[in-house]
């Protein structure tokens, strides 16, 4: 991803909108007893499109904003989304551009990773109440929803940052390049 000022501005706007929409809308939705984690999928998409560094920085920033909006412990969601962005970016850097099936699987797996990181932070900082087995069900449902939404969210994010994507530029160049004249 080529980060120009325009693209950074677009990323900031996208992240702010995704964080606010997550807190005021998606978290309040009831889908099979859980709710979609679209903010996490936006970070995952940016990681897949822009690499580990961009993914980690965007994840950290969006997480901090969510922490502030919810008046929760600062750093909790930041650490969670930072991990998701970094892992998604590393996948892209080591394995390459993921296929559609891989995007869905990765989306689900990273949603599960997010749930695990939050659980680890919560348990690590001390919890004085019983924990129901239903937290596992919630994590599984969340990751299934994540798998289902990963492709549409990736397509939307790709649309927003399309002009900055190296692959897209190469594709566009190939499409517009003059064809060699046949003898």
């Amino acid at each position: 991803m080529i980060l120009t000022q325009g693209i950074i501005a677009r990323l900031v706007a996208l992240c702010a909108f995704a964080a606010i929409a997550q807190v005021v809308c998606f978290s309040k939705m009831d889908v099979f007893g859980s709710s979609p984690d679209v903010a996490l999928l936006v970070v995952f998409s940016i990681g897949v499109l822009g690499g580990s560094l961009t993914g980690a920085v965007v994840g950290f920033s969006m997480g901090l904003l969510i922490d502030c909006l919810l008046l929760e412990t600062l750093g909790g969601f930041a650490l969670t989304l930072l991990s998701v962005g970094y892992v998604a970016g590393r996948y892209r850097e080591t394995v390459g551009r993921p296929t559609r099936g891989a995007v869905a699987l990765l989306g689900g797996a990273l949603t599960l990773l997010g749930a695990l990181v939050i659980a680890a932070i919560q348990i690590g900082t001390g919890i004085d109440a019983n924990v129901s087995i239903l937290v596992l069900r919630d994590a599984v449902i969340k990751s299934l929803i994540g798998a289902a939404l990963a492709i549409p969210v990736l397509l939307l994010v790709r649309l927003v940052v399309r002009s900055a994507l190296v692959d897209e530029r190469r594709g566009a160049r190939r499409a517009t390049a003059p064809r060699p004249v046949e003898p």
Partner: protein
Amino acid sequence: MYRKQVRRRRAVLLLLVAASLTLLSLYYREGNAGPLHGAENVVSTIFSPISSVTDRALKPVRDTVNWFHETFDARGDKARLQDTVASLRNQLAREQTQQAEVKELSALNELTSGGIVPDGTTPVTARVVGRSPTVWYSTVTIDKGSGDGVRVDDPVVAAQGLAGKITQTTSNTAQVTLITDADSAVTARVQPSGATGVVEPNVGNPNDLQLDFLERGAQIAQGQMVLTAGFSTGDLGSIFPPGIPIGKITHATVEEQQAYQRVHLSPFVDLRDMDFVKVLTTHSGGGSK
């Protein structure tokens, strides 16, 4: 060149992880008046009007999704409704939302005007504008804050009963920690037996609460109602006024009562689906109520 990139990537990652952990650590150690809480309040205050507008703007989307979920649950009615659903879906969602809001507000008014609000308490009606995306933090954000007279530890009720208490405020928003949060504990009394205990959550299961530390030999049966006890011993007192409905006993076996002094209850309030709440403010001053 590649090595330099790898080094830079690792350095940034380490820096961000260290920043996250430092923030977590400092946030826990500092008091509510600390600089990190202050910075968080400033950001929350700035984004509060945007959140409020976005909440209203995206409500039809949310209601449509929830409407699908409710329709899925009501499979028995599906065939009868299928013909009309397509054309009326959006209109129905909007009208149902308005009706539900009116119903919720009426029930909320009924509850707070039914004698459970102690003298000197002013109920402040607030809209729920934010919710945590994880089951580990059972908190919601409301659109009223210290500027409206809301203070930390004020009790919060929803249309059907107790919802939680205020744990943090900014000038125009506040964080409500729900009774299903891991940090929550409410002294309660079972009616009509009069047995008292402490209502604690079962993290991850918003439909199940536990009434712990019951007196041995208490006669508790399924279906009995649990209300806030609102005890007062000298200077020490519960922040919740007595008589606010909390839930209904769902599971009370003699064995569990004898061994763990515990029974289970389900909350009256659907804590995942609240649009309005009332904060029972007890402080003078503040802005409009």
